């Protein structure tokens, strides 16, 4: 088919215009993708900042009808729950990651990797339901221990996976150098490989903490909530995300304000964790840039 020059030119122009239009459409859609982020930030800051004060972090919630009060007990409760979670998930996760990276050819390791992958992709409410049926229902009580275990089960695969990824980046010759010095393998792993990537491993842990700090669904069915200071690990324990949920679905103006303030606290915390990890993750303890 031979096109006249003019027709050829027209076709080319049409293709160019189509190119421009589609590029514009892609840019427009991409812009739409991040608009919600800015709107959420805007609304959280505007609505939350007025209720943020010293009382908010230290006081108990006030009874209905009174103005003010705070989420001190929820913040303390969240810290307790996250501590219980880290107590189990950090050591098991880090050593699990070491196992995945350093002994990857073992049969147990491939089964373990499969389980960790499955746990990562599991909806968090299912983990909550598991703890609910296995701990809460038999013990007939919501508790900080149950909530902590649920959070720990969410945290463990994240820590194990990031530790594995980080240790894999250590070049083989570093391990060989250690072994050549006559060190036993576990000393090489703990004192050369793991220590060499210490800050990256810690970053992974912090990232996992940021991930579970906002988890609500599993806590709702395990730690439940409480309007007083947490006094015992076997009692229902308040937490920041659950309190935000309770306040958000309530019909009271003062509680809505508190919910926004709680959301602001949570989002600022998570935002800083993300920026912090981003800065540290690109740095390598061995003195070389990985990215």
């Amino acid at each position, binding site marked *: 088919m031979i096109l006249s020059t003019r027709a050829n030119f027209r076709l080319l122009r049409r293709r160019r215009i*189509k190119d421009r239009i589609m590029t514009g459409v892609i840019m427009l859609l991409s812009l739409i993708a991040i608009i919600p982020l800015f709107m959420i930030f805007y609304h959280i800051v505007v609505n939350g900042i007025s209720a943020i004060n010293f009382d908010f972090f230290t006081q108990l919630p006030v009874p209905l009808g009174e103005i003010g009060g705070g989420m001190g007990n929820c913040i303390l409760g969240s810290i307790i729950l996250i501590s219980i979670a880290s107590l189990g998930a950090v050591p098991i996760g880090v050593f699990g990651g*070491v196992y995945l990276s350093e002994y990857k050819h073992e049969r147990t390791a491939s089964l373990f990797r499969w389980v960790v992958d499955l746990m990562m992709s*599991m*909806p*968090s*409410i*299912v983990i909550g339901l598991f703890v609910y049926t296995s701990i809460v229902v038999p013990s007939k009580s919501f508790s900080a221990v149950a909530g902590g275990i649920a959070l720990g089960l969410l945290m463990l695969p994240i820590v194990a996976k990031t530790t594995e990824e980080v240790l894999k980046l250590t070049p083989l010759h570093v391990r060989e150098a250690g072994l050549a010095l006559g060190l036993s393998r576990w000393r090489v792993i703990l004192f050369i490989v793991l220590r060499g990537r210490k800050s990256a491993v810690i970053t992974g842990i912090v990232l996992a903490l*940021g991930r579970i700090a906002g988890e*609500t669904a599993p806590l709702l069915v395990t730690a439940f909530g409480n309007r007083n200071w947490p006094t015992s690990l076997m009692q229902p324990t308040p937490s920041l995300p659950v309190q935000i949920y309770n306040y958000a679905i309530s019909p009271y103006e003062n509680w809505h304000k508190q919910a926004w303030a709680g959301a602001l606290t949570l989002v600022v915390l998570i935002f800083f964790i993300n920026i912090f990890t981003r800065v540290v993750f690109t740095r390598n303890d061995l003195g070389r840039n990985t990215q």
Partner: protein
Amino acid sequence: MKKVFDLFFKKHKASEVRKSDFAFVFFLRCLAVLVILIFASLIYYLWDGSSAILKHSGWGFFLGREWDPNSDQFGALPFIYGTLLTSVVALVIAAPIAISAAILLTEIAVQKIAKPFGFLIEMLAAIPSVVYGLWGIFVLAPFVRDYIQPFLGKYFSFLPFFKGPPFGIGIFTAGLILAIMILPTITAVCREVFLAIPTSLREGVLALGSTRWEMIKTAVVEAGFSGILAAIALGFGRAMGETMAVTMLIGNRPDISLSLFSPGATMASVIANESPEATSNLHVSSLAAIGFALFLVSLGVSGLARLITKITKRRFAK
């Protein structure tokens, strides 16, 4: 028994591995086995928990349309329907936007723009579900009620999906918030797939005289099509498991209605909503059964997605 024994005490020559090494590996294996056992007990507890309701009403439990805990009526169909419908709404909205964002990140934007843009998209994934729910209740739902739903009702009321009074709270709004939440997942997977496509393919298409859009269409979208499908499947899995934001925005009524404006409930939302108050054995058991079904389906979907990504990546690696 011997197999278990071998797993821990594989025959090593004493000269090969020192005793301390042996103890270390043993310790690591114990930890791994502990986690595997926890996972196995998770499956066992969910299965055991759901056995009571399955004995009571059999597999028909998943087809029952009535859900009324007060009169011991348990049927899971409204929740399955709600989960599917909200997820589909979310995918229809999120998929084109997320894929466009991935194209922008890999094909169009220069590094200086792509980096902060990618960071912003990732931040969307970092915001907790409950914060999305809070924002949804006070900002998104009123907006949907006042602007989007009247608009859809006015011009598309011939479709059965857009009938009924605009409440703001309902399946449509829940799907909308889900769309925002699964967007970063789809974008991240698409981006990974697009980056795996060799540059030579793009160069080849461009060298034939195509425009950039034609290159994107043939060398990126069509070449990475299976990867895009995997990303969408992964987003689908995420959407099904999302709990808090949906619970806060869907209205929590176990109805089956064709209209997207009416309130509904999902599998995840009913667990979060009713577990704290469930007292009867049968009620707890039916919640466990719903959780078990959710677990199996989301594992199936994400497993499928991972398989597709792996195959796609391997194809490009050759």
